[in-house]
C-alpha cells in the first residue's frame, strides 16, 4: 500500500502532539511507553518502505496533486531503498535511545519525548522528500528540535554555548539553502527536484547555476560537518545528552551528505554532466581534508563525547569521498558504510553514557583504570573501536569493499589507502581511550590532550536504583551486534548498487516521478571483492592497534625522537586546536570562507 509513505513522518508527529496535549494527565512512565512504541512502529514502517521500494521507487503526491502534463504542482515523497534505509536507521536508533533513556528525563516530563519524536519525524521527512523547499522545511524542523535538545542541560554554560554555536551555524546554513533554492526557482520555476533537473539539463552552466549549487552544497555540508563547516559539531555533540548524541552523530550528520546526493543526481547531474571529473576532485579533496582534521583532533581529546564527535567528523570525510566518486558503487558503498557505522557509533555513545552514569565521569584520563567495573561498557567500547578501525569482514566491510572497487573504477586507486589512514586515526584513538579507561594502561597525564573538561554534569534525573541494567546495557549491545552483523546480509552490495544505479539514471528517474513511468527492473551488477579490501581492513586494524599504543606510551619513546617531533609538530597542532575556539564569530567567518571558496572552485570547474 502506498499510503505507508507519509507515515514515517506523520506517526511520530501525531504521537508528539498527543503527548504534548496530554502531558498533565499522563501517568509517569506512560510517556516513555508511548514514545518507545511510536519509535518502534516507525522503524517497522520505514523498514517496510525499504522492502516495498526494492524494484521501483514509491512516488507519493501529497494532497493527491499528481503532476499535470508532466508539471509538478504539489509536493512528492520519493521513496527509494537507500533513502528509506536511512529513515529506518533513524527510527531504530530513536527506539534504542528511548529504551536507554527510560525514566532518564523525569525532570522535564514529556518535553524530551515530544522533541525527540518531532526530531525523528523531521529526519524521516528530510530524507524522503523529493521537493527542494520541503527539504528546507524539514531541515529547519531538525534544527529547531536539535537546538532545544542540545541545550537541555541549562544549568551550566557549556551546553548553552554548544547550543548557540549549533543554532547560529545551522540557521545560517539554512539561509544558504533557501537562497540557493530561490535562485533555482527563479530560473526553473520549479521546486520538485526532477522537474528542476529537466529544465536545467537543457541549459549550460552559468553564474546562477554555479552559485545556486554552491549555496545548496555549502548549506548541506554544514549539516554534515565537513571542514571548514564542522566547528559547531564538536561543540554541540560534546554537551548534548547521550540519547540525543546518538541521533545527532549517527544519523543527522549523514543526512546532510545524503541530501547532497539527493539534489545532485535528480537536479544537477544533467547540467554538470561534463564536469564530473573536476567535481570528483573537489569532493574527494574536501573529504580527505575533513577526514584528516577530524582524525587528528580526535586524537587530542580526552573528553570521550568530544572525542567521538571528532570521530564523527572524520568519518563524514570518508563518506564525502565515497559520494564524491560519483559512481553507483560509490553511492551504494557509502550508504552501506553509513548504516553499519551509524549503529556502531550509536553503541559507542551509549557506552560513554553507561560510563557517565555508573562512574559519574566521561573524561578519559580521570577514568583511567576505573572502567574495570563496567564490563559491558568495555565490551561495547572495544568492539566499537575495532569496528571503526575496519576489522574485516564485519560492520562496514561491505560498504568499504564497494568504495575500494569504485575508487579503482574511476582511477582513484590511491584513495582507499588514504581512507584507511582515517580508520587508523579514529580506530586507534578509540582503542587508546578504551585501553586507558578499561584496562588502566598508559600514562595518567598527557599534556598533548586538550584542557581538562569540567566534571561531567550529565546525571540522569533519577536515582540509580530506578534504571534497571537491561535498559542501560541492552541497547548498546544490540546496536553493536546489528552493526557488526550488517555486512553478512546476503547480496547486499549488489542490490545496493542496483538501487544506486536506478537513482542516478536521471531521465528514467524523472520519467518515473513526473510521469509515473516505471523503469524496467534491472539485474544486480556483479560484485566480487577480491583481496584488496581485506588487505586494507587488516592493515588498518593492525596499524590502529599500533597507533593506540603510540597514544598510550608515547612518552616512553627516546627523548631525542620526542623533542624532534615536538619541534616539528607542536606549532601546527597549536594552530589546529586554536581554530576550534568555541567562538561563534570565528565559526561564521569560516562558514563564509567555505561557501565563498566552494563557489569559486565550482565556478572554475564549470567555467
Amino acid at each position: 500500500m502506498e499510503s505507508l509513505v507519509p507515515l514515517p513522518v506523520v506517526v511520530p508527529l501525531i504521537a508528539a502532539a498527543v503527548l504534548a496535549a496530554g502531558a498533565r494527565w499522563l501517568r509517569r512512565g506512560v510517556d516513555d511507553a508511548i514514545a518507545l512504541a511510536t519509535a518502534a512502529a516507525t522503524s517497522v514502517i520505514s523498514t517496510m518502505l525499504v522492502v516495498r521500494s526494492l524494484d521501483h521507487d514509491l512516488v507519493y503526491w501529497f494532497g493527491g496533486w499528481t503532476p499535470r502534463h508532466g508539471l509538478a504542482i504539489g509536493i512528492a515523497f520519493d521513496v527509494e531503498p537507500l533513502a528509506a534505509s536511512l529513515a529506518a536507521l533513524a527510527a531504530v536508533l530513536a527506539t534504542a535511545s528511548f529504551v536507554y533513556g527510560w525514566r532518564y528525563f523525569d525532570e522535564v516530563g514529556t518535553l524530551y519525548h515530544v522533541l525527540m519524536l518531532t526530531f525523528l519525524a523531521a529526519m524521516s521527512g528530510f530524507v524522503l522528500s523529493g521537493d527542494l523547499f520541503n527539504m528546507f522545511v524539514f531541515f529547519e524542523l531538525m534544527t529547531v528540535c536539535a537546538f532545544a535538545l542540545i541545550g537541555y542541560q541549562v544549568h551550566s554554560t557549556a551546553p548553552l554555548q554548544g547550543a548557540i554555536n549549533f543554532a547560529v551555524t545551522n540557521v545560517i546554513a539554512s539561509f544558504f539553502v533557501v537562497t540557493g533554492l530561490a535562485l533555482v526557482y527563479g530560473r526553473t520555476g520549479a521546486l520538485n527536484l526532477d522537474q528542476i533537473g529537466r529544465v536545467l539539463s537543457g541549459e549550460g552552466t552559468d553564474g546562477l547555476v554555479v552559485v545556486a549549487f554552491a549555496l545548496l552544497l555549502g548549506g548541506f555540508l554544514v549539516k554534515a560537518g565537513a571542514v571548514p563547516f564542522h566547528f559547531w559539531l564538536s561543540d554541540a555533540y560534546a554537551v548534548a545528552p547521550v540519547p540525543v548524541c546518538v541521533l545527532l552523530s549517527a544519523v543527522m550528520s549523514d543526512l546532510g551528505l545524503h541530501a547532497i546526493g539527493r539534489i545532485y543526481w535528480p537536479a544537477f547531474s544533467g547540467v554538470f554532466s561534463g564536469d564530473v571529473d573536476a567535481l570528483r576532485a573537489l569532493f574527494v579533496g574536501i573529504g580527505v581534508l575533513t577526514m584528516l582534521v577530524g582524525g587528528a583532533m580526535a586524537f587530542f581529546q580526552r573528553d570521550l563525547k568530544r572525542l567521538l564527535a571528532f570521530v564523527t567528523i572524520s568519518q563524514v570525510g570518508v563518506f564525502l569521498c565515497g559520494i564524491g566518486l560519483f559512481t553507483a558503487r560509490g553511492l551504494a558503498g557509502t550508504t552501506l558504510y553509513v548504516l553499519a557505522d551509524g549503529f556502531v557509533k550509536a553503541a559507542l555513545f551509549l557506552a560513554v553514557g553507561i560510563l557517565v552514569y555508573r562512574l559519574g565521569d566521561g573524561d578519559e584520563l580521570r577514568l583511567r583504570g576505573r572502567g574495570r567495573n563496567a564490563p559491558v561498557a568495555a565490551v561495547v567500547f572495544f568492539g566499537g573501536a575495532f569496528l571503526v578501525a575496519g576489522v574485516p569482514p564485519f560492520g562496514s566491510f561491505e560498504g568499504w569493499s564497494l568504495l575500494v572497487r569504485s575508487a579503482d573504477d574511476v582511477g582513484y586507486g590511491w584513495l582507499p589507502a588514504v581512507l584507511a589512514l582515517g580508520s587508523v586515526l579514529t580506530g586507534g584513538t578509540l582503542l587508546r581511550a578504551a585501553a586507558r579507561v578499561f584496562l588502566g594502561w598508559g600514562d595518567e597525564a598527557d599534556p598533548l590532550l586538550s584542557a581538562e573538561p569540567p566534571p561531567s554534569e550529565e546525571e540522569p534525573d533519577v536515582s540509580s536504583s530506578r534504571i534497571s541494567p537491561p535498559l542501560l546495557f541492552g541497547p548498546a549491545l544490540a546496536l553493536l551486534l546489528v552493526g557488526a552483523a550488517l555486512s553478512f546480509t546476503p547480496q547486499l552490495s549488489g542490490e545496493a548498487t542496483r538501487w544506486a544505479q536506478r537513482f542516478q539514471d536521471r531521465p528514467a528517474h524523472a520519467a518515473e516521478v513526473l510521469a509515473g513511468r516505471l523503469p524496467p527492473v534491472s539485474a544486480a551488477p556483479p560484485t566480487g571483492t577480491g583481496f584488496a579490501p581485506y588487505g586494507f581492513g587488516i592493515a588498518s586494524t593492525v596499524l590502529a592497534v599500533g597507533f593506540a599504543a603510540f597514544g598510550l606510551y608515547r612518552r616512553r619513546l627516546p627523548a631525542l625522537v620526542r623533542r624532534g617531533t615536538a619541534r616539528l609538530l607542536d606549532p601546527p597542532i597549536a594552530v589546529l586546536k586554536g581554530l576550534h575556539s568555541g567562538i561563534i564569530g570565528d565559526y561564521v567567518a569560516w562558514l563564509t570562507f567555505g561557501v565563498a571558496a566552494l563557489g569559486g572552485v565550482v565556478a572554475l570547474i564549470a567555467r
Partner: protein
Amino acid sequence: MSYLPYALAVWLFVVGLYGVVTSRHLIHLTVCLMVMQSSSYVLLLSIGYVDRGTAPIFADVPKGTRAVDPVVQALTLTDVVVSVAVAALLLAVAMQVRRRHGSADPEQLSAVKG
C-alpha cells in the same frame, strides 16, 4: 535598475552576516540573523513579482487579470514562521547565558573549545 530588488537581498545577506561575525551581544546577534533571514523574503518575493501584476487574490477581479506568483508568497510565509521560531529559541538561550554566565557576549563564552 531591474536587478535592484535582488541586489537588496544580497546586501541584507552580507550586512547581516557582518553583524553576526562582529556581534558582542547575543540579542544583537539574533537580530542580525533576522536581518539575514529577511534577505530570503526579499529575494523570493522579487523573483515571483510580475510587472503590473496584482496580488494572487481573485476576489472581485475580472477573469484573466495578471497576478504575481503565489508560490513564493507561500514559501515566504513559511520562512517567516521559521524566523520567529529561531528567534524565540535563541533569545531564550541568550537569557539563560546571561543569567548563568553574567555576560551575553559570545566571545566571553569559553566552556567548550580545543
